[in-house]
Every structure is written in C-alpha cells, then in structure tokens.
C-alpha cells in the first residue's frame, strides 16, 4: 500500500512538472493545477511517511537495473520516512503560498517554468531521500542540483541574478563532484553500489571516501567555509524557492551525511570531532554574519548556515558519544539533530515565506527601508513573530525543544573518557550558547526593524496585507512550530523515544495561567483607560523616522565587539594646512568590508584554476600539425606502454 502511494506521489509530481511545460499557455489555472500536483503529492508523502516513522517496517521497491552493475531502486526506512515527512510538510505549505505569489510575479508564460521546475525539484529531493543505492543517490543528487539551478536562475533579467546563479552552479557541482568521488571510493572499497555497512575499522580508502562525502554534503548544506553560495542564491531566487532550498534542500544534504554515517561507515572518534568543529564554526560565524546583514533574505540565509551548524553539532556529538560507547546519550544528540532539522525546516520556510510577503509589499529587501509594517500587515507580522520566537529557541516553541535536546546531550556528556575531549566539548557548548543568544538578538533586530516603529520609506508606508492564500501556507507552518514545541515530549514518546525533555505543554499551560492571572488582577485593580500620545522626540516637535533606531544601529554594539571577525577596515586619511593638524585641507575616508572567505579562500583557488587552465590551454594552439603530433606521440606512448606492461 505504502509503496503504491509512493509511486503515485512520484507520478503526480511528474505530472505537475510536465503539464505546464507541454501546454505552454500563460494561464493561471494551468499553474494552479501544477501547484495543485505539488500539494497533492506532498500530502500523500506526508501521510505515507507516518506509518513507517511510527515503526511499521521498511518499504522496499524493486530495483530497475538497466545495466549489470547499475540499478535504480527505492527503499523507505524510518530515516528516509522522517525526511519524506519534512519534504511533504514544507512543500505543501510552500506550494499553497506559491499559487498566489507566482501570479504577482513578472514573466508571463515563463512562470510555467517556475511551477514546473518546482515540481521537478521536489521530485528530485524525494528521489534522493528514497534512493536505495549510492548510484541512484548520485543520479538524483545531480537532478536536484539541476532543478534548483533552473529555479535560482528564474529571474535572470535582474542584474545580480546571473552571477549568483553561476556561483551556485559552481558550488553545487563541486559538491556533486565530491559526492561522486566518495561514492566511487566506496565502490573501490566494497565493490558494489549498495548502501551496506563496511565491516571493521575504516581503511584508508573508506576514510578518504568519508572525507569526500563530508565535503560534498558540507558544501551543499552551507557549512562554513563552503557557505558563500547561500547568501548569493537565496536573495536571487523567488521567495518560495528560497524557502524550499533553505528548509528542504539543505536537509537533504544532512540526510545524505546521516545515511552514510549510520548505514555505511563505522565512524571513528575524530570524525565526530571534525563534524562538531565545522558545525560549531558554522553556527557561531553564521549568526555573527547574519547580524551584520541588512538584506532580509541574505540574513535568513546566514541564519540557515547557523542552524545547519547546530544540526552538524548534534551529528558530531552523536558520533563522538557513539564511538565512546555512550549510545543512550548519543541517541539523544542524534534525536536533537533530527528534530532540529525538522524544526528548522518549519520555521525557516515560515520566515522565508513571510519575508517574501514583506518584500512583495515593500518592493525592497533592505530592512532599513521597512518599519511600521505591523500596523499594515498585522497577520504577516504575527506569523513572522512566531517564526522569530521559534528560531530564537524560546520556550515553548519547537526551536527550543530541539536545541534543548542537544544542550542536554552536551550537559550529560561529562562521562566521556578523554579529558581533552571534555574541554573541547565544553568549548563547543559555550559557543553553542553564544549562538543561540546571538540569534535571539538577530531576530529582535529583524522583527523590530521590519515590523515595529515607523515606516522608513514611502513603499513601506503604503504596504498592505497580502491575500489570504499567502497567509494560509505560513499559517500552517506557524501552527506546526507551536504544536511541535508544546507537544515535543508527547511526540517523542509517541515515536518511541524516551528523552530528558521537560513537559513543554505544562510550561505553556503555566505561562497561560500566569498571563491570565496577571491580566485578571490588573483588570480589577487598575483603571482600564489608556491614552494615545506622541512619542517623545527628544525636543523636536514631531517624531521622524530618520531619528528612529535603525537595524544597523541595533547591531552596532555587537559589530564592535566582534569587529576582529568582520575584518572591517576603516581608512581615514586627512591632510592639514598647518603642522598642528588644525586647519583641514582635504581627506579621504572609506569603510571596506573584507569578505574574508572570498578573498582568502575562494579567489586564490579560482586564480589557481585559471593559472592551470592557462598552462594547459597553451597546448591548444589551433595548428593542425601540432595536433597530429599529439596524436602521433600518444599512439607511440600507448604502444610502448602496452608492449611493456602486457
């Protein structure tokens, strides 16, 4: 039954991909049908994943083997079902939102490509998660990369898009390259493409395979220092696509890492330390960069880097604890990582969708030109606020529940044997706490500058609430964020895990009780009148939006504290008429934001490749005689080699 449903979901997605591309009419109904396919398929996927997730056993679909060694097959176990659920829930809400959103976009019939490719993208992600062997995993991984590239490239006529898309294209193929290398190395090791456990301690080949796969998945999930594509690709792509990429595609990469760690490799402790170290660096640096960002979508992209870092921390901790023989504690860390993947998918798609509404209403991505939107877009504001609460890990929402699991794993990991490792774990714990507190600061800034205060531009002044369908998708996500947080303990118990989580339902209840109590007491003893009067404008007659605290000003203290990390260079050169430096003659001043990773990592590597290519290009001089000489030399060399070797 489940297998048939799965095939049905795939076919529906395929239909959603083909219909708008074959019938090339600029028609709202056509696109609605296409998104309807996404919605239907997502619903089927979410439903079919539930029984598997609750432990009804693994579903295997017969493999299609076109040629001996290569086969394409599917299987759905609990891990795959979990990620199918994640894909299903998020793409359901995103497609609901996109129906209306894409009608507001420019592009005429080009919008058919958008909805078609969205279906293809979802299809590819489903296939990656359900792939039964490494060969099909890689094929679908490539399909996912291609589909997402088309979507990022959608608004190619905007000035920043081509560069962003090419950047994304290169990075995503670098990721595919490393994944392919890893899979090939695994094939050398085991002689098959099956997802089987490699027995014994990992050999050199297996270790190399792990490093390659780790790099591939790290690039795809935006781990620092491979993260640079996220803040480029997300602002460039349409908001529903950003939501899908950030919420789901990054999680597919995490699925890949987990699948290989859990089912193929027998990890060693330093692998865990490696994952933990990269995770911690991404978490801290991600949120520090997010604080500095004033492009709303780029900020959300950096915050995705932070959250993926947290998930990697959970996975790294799991490997460290598992290899130290503490499997109960390790499973808590793993559960935390998985739960945070789901939670991040929910609140980040919520934030990206509401950010999309805001950008649609104000026609800008710069948070300094927003403000005061809570009066003009009250529902969107409330939804964004819910997302901010969840991402800032505040109880009783879902972000807190999953971070708490990872915190608990850290807190109780003191029984780990090696004292040096303990110190390392505590360092990670301290940085984790910093990350979580900084993300609260970051989202106070985001919500505050976008929705509160006074409008800081004409467009923001004239903004209006979006249509109900664009509120429904984020609304469902917001409800999911609250429910998964409040009932975190119950959900975990239902899935059969006993976790050291406090009962957040009780906490929520107590919060409501205290709220009611406070309100009731004040209702009776305090006067119920209130008056509206102008904010004090520091002596000015009226208050101006320019005098308000801006987003930039909000993050200034943290900018200064973390200035060694931002590497901002402030140059201030002045010339004076007199030697005492009193009468000013002329001067220049500039603030240069150093893009550390681009300047010290990406560009040197790129320049190296250009140099190598230039050297190789010398062989190609366009002269036929030279080419014949090459062929001749090659043939001679081959003859000599074969004669000597065979």
């Amino acid at each position: 039954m489940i297998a048939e449903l799965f095939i049905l979901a795939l076919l529906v997605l395929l239909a959603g991909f083909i219909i708008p591309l074959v019938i090339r009419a600029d028609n709202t109904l056509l696109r609605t049908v296409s998104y309807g396919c996404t919605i239907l398929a997502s619903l089927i996927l979410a439903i079919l994943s539930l029984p598997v997730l609750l432990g009804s056993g693994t579903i295997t679909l017969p493999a299609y083997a076109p040629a001996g060694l290569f086969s394409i097959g599917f299987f759905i176990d609990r891990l795959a079902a979990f990620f199918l659920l994640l894909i299903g829930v998020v793409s359901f809400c995103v497609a609901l939102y996109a129906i209306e959103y894409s009608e507001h976009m420019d592009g005429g019939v080009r919008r058919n490509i958008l909805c078609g490719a969205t279906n293809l993208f979802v299809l590819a992600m489903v296939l990656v998660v359900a792939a039964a062997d490494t060969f099909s995993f890689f094929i679908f991984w490539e399909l996912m990369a291609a589909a997402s590239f088309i979507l990022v490239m959608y608004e190619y006529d905007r000035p920043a898009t081509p560069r962003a898309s090419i950047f994304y294209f290169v990075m995503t193929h670098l990721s595919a390259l490393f994944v392919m290398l890893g899979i090939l190395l695994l094939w050398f090791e085991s002689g098959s493409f099956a997802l089987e456990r490699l027995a014994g301690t990992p050999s050199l080949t297996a270790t190399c395979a792990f490093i390659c796969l780790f790099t591939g998945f790290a690039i795809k999930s935006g781990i620092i220092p491979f993260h640079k594509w996220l803040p480029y690709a997300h602002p460039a792509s349409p908001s529903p696509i950003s939501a899908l990429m950030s919420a789901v595609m990054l999680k597919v990469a995490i699925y890949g890492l987990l699948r290989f760690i859990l089912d193929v490799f027998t990890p060693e402790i330093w692998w865990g330390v490696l994952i933990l170290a990269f995770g911690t660096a991404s978490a801290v640096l991600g949120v520090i960069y997010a604080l500095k960002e004033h492009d709303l979508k780029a900020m959300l992209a950096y915050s995705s880097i932070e959250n993926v870092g947290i998930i990697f921390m959970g996975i790294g901790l799991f490997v460290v604890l598992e290899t130290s023989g503490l499997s109960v504690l390790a499973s808590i860390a793993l559960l935390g990582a998985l739960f945070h993947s789901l939670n991040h998918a929910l609140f980040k798609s919520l934030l990206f969708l509401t950010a999309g509404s805001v950008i649609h209403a104000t026609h800008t991505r710069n948070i300094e030109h927003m403000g005061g939107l809570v009066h003009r877009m009250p529902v969107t504001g409330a939804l964004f606020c819910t997302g901010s609460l969840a991402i800032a890990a505040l109880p009783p929402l879902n972000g807190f529940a999953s971070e708490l699991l990872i915190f608990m794993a850290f807190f109780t990991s003191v029984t780990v044997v090696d004292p040096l490792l303990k110190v390392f774990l505590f360092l990670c714990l301290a940085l984790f706490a910093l990350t979580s507190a900084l993300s609260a600061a970051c989202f106070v800034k985001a919500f505050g500058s976008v929705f509160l205060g006074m409008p800081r531009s004409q467009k923001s002044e004239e903004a209006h609430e979006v249509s109900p369908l664009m509120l429904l998708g984020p609304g469902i996500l917001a409800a999911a964020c609250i429910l998964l947080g409040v009932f975190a303990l119950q959900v975990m118990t239902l899935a059969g895990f006993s976790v050291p989580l406090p009962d957040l339902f009780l906490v929520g209840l107590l919060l409501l009780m205290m709220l009611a109590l406070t309100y009731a007491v004040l209702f009776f003893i305090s006067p119920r009148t209130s008056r509206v009067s102008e904010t004090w404008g520091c002596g000015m007659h009226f208050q101006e939006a320019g005098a308000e605290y801006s987003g930039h000003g909000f993050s200034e203290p943290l900018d200064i504290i973390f200035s060694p990390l931002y590497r901002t260079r402030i140059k201030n050169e002045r010339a004076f008429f007199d030697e005492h430096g009193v009468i000013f003659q002329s001067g220049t001043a500039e603030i240069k934001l150093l893009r550390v990773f681009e300047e010290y990592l990406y560009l040197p590597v790129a320049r190296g490749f250009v140099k190598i290519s230039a050297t190789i290009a010398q062989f190609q001089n366009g002269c036929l005689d030279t080419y014949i000489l090459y062929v001749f030399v090659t043939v001679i060399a081959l003859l000599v080699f074969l004669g000597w070797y065979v």
Partner: protein
Amino acid sequence: MNLEFFFYILLNTAVVLLIAPLFSGLIKKVKAWTQGRQGPPLFQQYFVLFKLVKKEVIYSPNASWVMRAAPFLNMAAILVAALFVPLVFVTEPVGGIGNVILFLYLLAFARFFMALAGLDAGSSFGGMGSSREMSIAAIIEPTTIIVFAALAIVFKTTSIFSMFFTSASTQALVTPTIILIGISLFIILIVETSRIPVDNPETHLELTMIHEGMLLEQSGKNLALMELSAAVKLTVLMALLINLMIPAGLALSLTAAGVVIGAVLFILKGSVLAIIIGLFESSMAKKRLFQVPSLFAMAFFFSTLIIIIEVFA
C-alpha cells in the same frame, strides 16, 4: 499535577511577589546610605508599584500589540521562571519543571519581548536600550551556560530542585568549587539584573542606560509590571545563589512550621545578600559598554576553571 506541587506553585509565586520589592528597596537604601543620603523608605517600592497601577496607560501612536502584550508576557515568563527556583521549600518537581536550561530560556523569552517593546514606540532611546540589552545578554550567555554546566556536573543533575535537595541535605558543601561557582553566579546576577558595573538601574542618561532605556515608553500598569518583573527576576537569581551556597532553613517537606521558618530565614539571608549587592554596586563605577566584555571574560575564566577542576580532579 499533585496537590503538593499545586501548593508549591501558589506559595512560591506568592512569596516571590511579596518579597521582591523589599529586596530591590533594600538595595536602593544601602546605596543611599553609602552615598550619605537618607534614601527612600524601605517599603517605597510597594508604594511606587501601587501608584503606577492606579495610573492611566499612555501609548505612542506607533505602538502596536507588541507594546500592549509585552509587559504581560514578560511578567508571565518571569513568574514561570520563578517556579523553577524554590524559595522556601523544595518539593518533587512535576513534568521537568526545574530544568536549568529551560529556566535560562524563560528569562530569554521575557527579555525578547522587553526588547521588542523597546523598539515598538519608534523612540531612539528604546532602540538603544534594546540593542544594548540584547548584545550584553548574548555575550554573557557562554559564561552563564558554562556556570550552569558546572553546577550540573557538581550536583550530577540538570534540575534545580535536585540541586537544592542535594545542597540542603548535605549542609556543609562549601567546597572551593562551590565558592568559585558562587562568584560566577554573582557576576551573572549583576549582569542579568542590569546593575553596576554593567548598567545603572538609577539613571535615565542616554549614554549609560540599558534596561531603563527599554522601559522609557512604558507607563501606568505596564510600567508597574515591568518594574515588578525586574524585582522578581532579581529575587529569583538571589534565591538561586542563596539556596545553593547556604541552604540552611530550606524546608524539604510541606509543613507549616518548616515553611514559616524557611520564609523568615530566606528573608534574612536575602537581606544580607541585598546589602552585599548594594555595597558592591556602591564600590564600583559603571564600566563603559565596550569594557563590559572583559568583565565577562573574567567570569568565563572562573567558570571554565571550575570545569577544569571538576574534569581533572
């Protein structure tokens, strides 16, 4: 939820609400004495709160539901957090109440809405306060978590209730580790309650204020809630320090005599701590905002030292 825990909720909330203004009043009084002033009467805080409650609320035209909801959400979160720290008697916790991390994040919840309320009116003072509050809260967080991790290691539990049980049942637990944790907790208390040298609770000068800046647009009952919640937060953090260091008098079961003795002793111990805080504040000048991180680095050093002692001992 059993009956005893229900009584615990009532009693703890009532005690913390009643005592909180006294302690903040006492600190004010001590500071006045050291400055050679008479100072306000000891119970002035109660009168102030009563006066504010009876006043009309004034909102800015820019203010939204955030401004209206924040005082209530803030108060509710602080009151729930107060349940996590037993003041006069410890009972068996229900449903994971008492988890240290949840406690910290409930405080963060309160701070989140307070900071948003600071931004809501569109005044530059509010924004300045919010910005500084969130920045300082963020950089103290590693220290806080390390201190609580150290507590979790020393007491082998993540529940504040169990920690108090352990400390109350083994009276003489004043080891070097506990003293170091006490120092770090004291620094956290100073930072979390916006006191000198990090912030100055008495000033409304734009260059120095943090916490007060956020409250500048609050009025009437909303301001009363904000003031009371700040006092409750102070009391709760003081209780945490007191009941870990000197748990004498903390009742381990629900008896009328035990609770009364516990309450009296708690007020005594709390008053001593309030005097210490007052003297500590008076003996210091407020640090510049960007010198504050170095203070935190010191607290971080102390707490890491505890961890290392615990790990290698």
